[in-house]
């Protein structure tokens, strides 16, 4: 009996390796290796036509402190923060309502939330241009009401609208799963103890769905500046507003300054990792109570 044990453990381990292996291998080759390359670029000088010259230098990092770039970062963070806040304000009621729908309608509503993902992202963004331009339906409507025309396209507002539209599902889905998991008896207990519905929401529902709020906010806040959507600022912002995503793309494709592009990318990854750690920590803290 005891003699056989190691064999079984070994069998289990190799079984695990067999199931994890392919995915793990894929990630190693296509995620970790490029990331290591980007990391290594940061300490070298730029090549004249892209690439790097293998001469160590620290000046790439020093450039990060340049007010020009700090302004871009600050601007990105501002837009990301506004987008995140709006996404939360719009997403929470939506997620809350979906979570309380009858089971059949829940599925339909959730499909509706992710439906836009099934259409090409560029086409959807162009649709916003059509919607917002000076002759578009929004402005026609405003004109009819005597309020317009207003310059909508190529503004920060248009960028936020586009970002919000693109990332709202990332807010709704974690919120939905957090609210849906809440025991409805907790709401009943709160009412039974004398709390009005609004009080129940503030004291019970909201605090217990905070992990979902955090996840949603981190998703939206991180994806906006990092994955960075350089398409939306360019198409809806008319290139007037440069976000970190645009900056990174420009360093690699236009300025051919790979080392500095790498520094920027790395900075974004660092922020992302920090935020995800903060989120995991907060979720664990909240989860211990739940």
């Amino acid at each position: 009996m005891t003699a056989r044990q190691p064999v079984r453990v070994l069998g289990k381990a190799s079984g695990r390796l067999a199931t994890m292996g392919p995915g793990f291998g894929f990630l190693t080759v296509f995620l970790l290796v490029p990331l290591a390359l980007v990391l290594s670029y940061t300490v070298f000088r730029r090549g004249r036509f892209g690439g790097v010259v293998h001469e160590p230098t620290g000046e790439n990092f020093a450039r990060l402190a340049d007010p020009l770039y700090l302004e871009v970062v600050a601007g990105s963070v501002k837009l990301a923060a506004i987008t995140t806040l709006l996404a939360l304000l719009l997403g929470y009621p939506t997620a809350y309502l979906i979570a309380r729908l009858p089971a059949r309608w829940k599925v339909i509503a959730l499909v509706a939330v992710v439906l836009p993902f099934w259409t090409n992202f560029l086409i959807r963004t162009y649709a916003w241009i059509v919607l917002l331009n000076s002759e578009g339906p929004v402005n026609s409507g405003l004109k009819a009401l005597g309020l317009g025309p207003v310059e909508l396209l190529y503004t920060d507002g248009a960028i936020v609208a586009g970002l919000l539209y693109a990332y709202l599902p990332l807010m709704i889905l974690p919120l939905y799963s957090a609210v849906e998991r809440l025991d409805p008896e907790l709401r009943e207990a709160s009412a039974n103890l004398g709390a009005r519905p609004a009080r129940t929401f503030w004291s019970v529902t909201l605090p217990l769905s905070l992990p979902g709020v955090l996840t949603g906010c981190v998703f939206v806040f991180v994806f906006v500046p990092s994955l960075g959507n350089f398409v939306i600022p360019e198409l809806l912002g008319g290139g007037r507003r440069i976000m970190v995503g645009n900056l990174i793309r420009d360093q690699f494709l236009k300025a051919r300054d790979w080392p500095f592009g790498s520094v920027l990318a790395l900075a974004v990854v660092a922020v992302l990792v920090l935020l995800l750690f903060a989120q995991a920590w907060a979720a664990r803290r909240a989860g211990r109570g739940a």
Partner: protein
Amino acid sequence: MTLISIDGVSRRFGEVTALDSVSLDIRQGEFFALLGPSGCGKTTLLRILAGFEQPDIGSVRLDGADLLAIPAHRRPVNLMFQSYALFPHMSVEKNVAYGLERERLPRAEIRERVAAVLETVGLAAQARRRPHELSGGQRQRVALARAVVKRPRLLLLDEPLSALDKKVRSEMQLELKRLQHEVGITFVVVTHDQEEAMSLADRIAVLNGGRVEQVDTPVDLYERPRTPFVAGFIGASNLFTGRATGKGLDVDGLGVLPAPAGPVEGGTAMLAVRPERIRLGPVTDGRGALRGRVVDVSFYGGVSHVALSVAGHDRTVLAATQGRARVEAGAEVALSWDADDGALVPLTP
């Protein structure tokens, strides 16, 4: 004095009738139980009292005032949930204080009352713990404290003992009765467990299929069941169906069995005889109501159960004796009981 008066309450969920014109009076200060199998409507009735559910028709009055017109959060009714439903993000004392804070009481009074009730349920030392750091029994006492601290007119308890293991169960049972005595609040316990209902309640309403079968004290319910359902549901019973005559119950294939004189003479009736009322004796000519063969004897310490097969009766007859049984499996015995030890229940044809 009547505290709660439930009159003609019905509730349907689609095709299912959860409550079918239920009428009940619950008296001030009593420990009342709603007892029935799952799906009998007892939980729906509880939810109507708490305000989470509205009846289709019927009225519920508390002290003569219409309870149904009051929203759940303003009723002087508190519920101890079966799942306890403690707020996981709050400490024990925050949980207990929650209801008092909603009443906007002064902080000092809240602190005082929370401390007092935690003392009463023996959880003063755990006041700052979170629910997940407590045992099941402790969590239940928090739930109880949270409901009692509001000093409601009516305290509802949903299956209060079902989640506890045997030892904690009997402790909690005593504690509930003591507490009810001390605070003088009217308790309504909902349960499918007849032992729980019998041991706790002053009066029990047996519900079945959304209807009230019988409302009585535990002893009367046990000894004087008035419907076939109650006769079969409460305790173990030996049930015989036959025609009531002046001399007893005439059962096909068994003859006339001793039965109390009932109001159902001439009609079909069900006779329920408790196992502990059946005496077993040696087979002598013509003595005893029935003859049977011992199938099995099981010893439970204080009592023994003897299972018997009786020719002409398709169900096993159960007899209980004090201490160890004096018969062995395979033995032929005579069964007898006094006419007044049985309960005769009319059967509606």
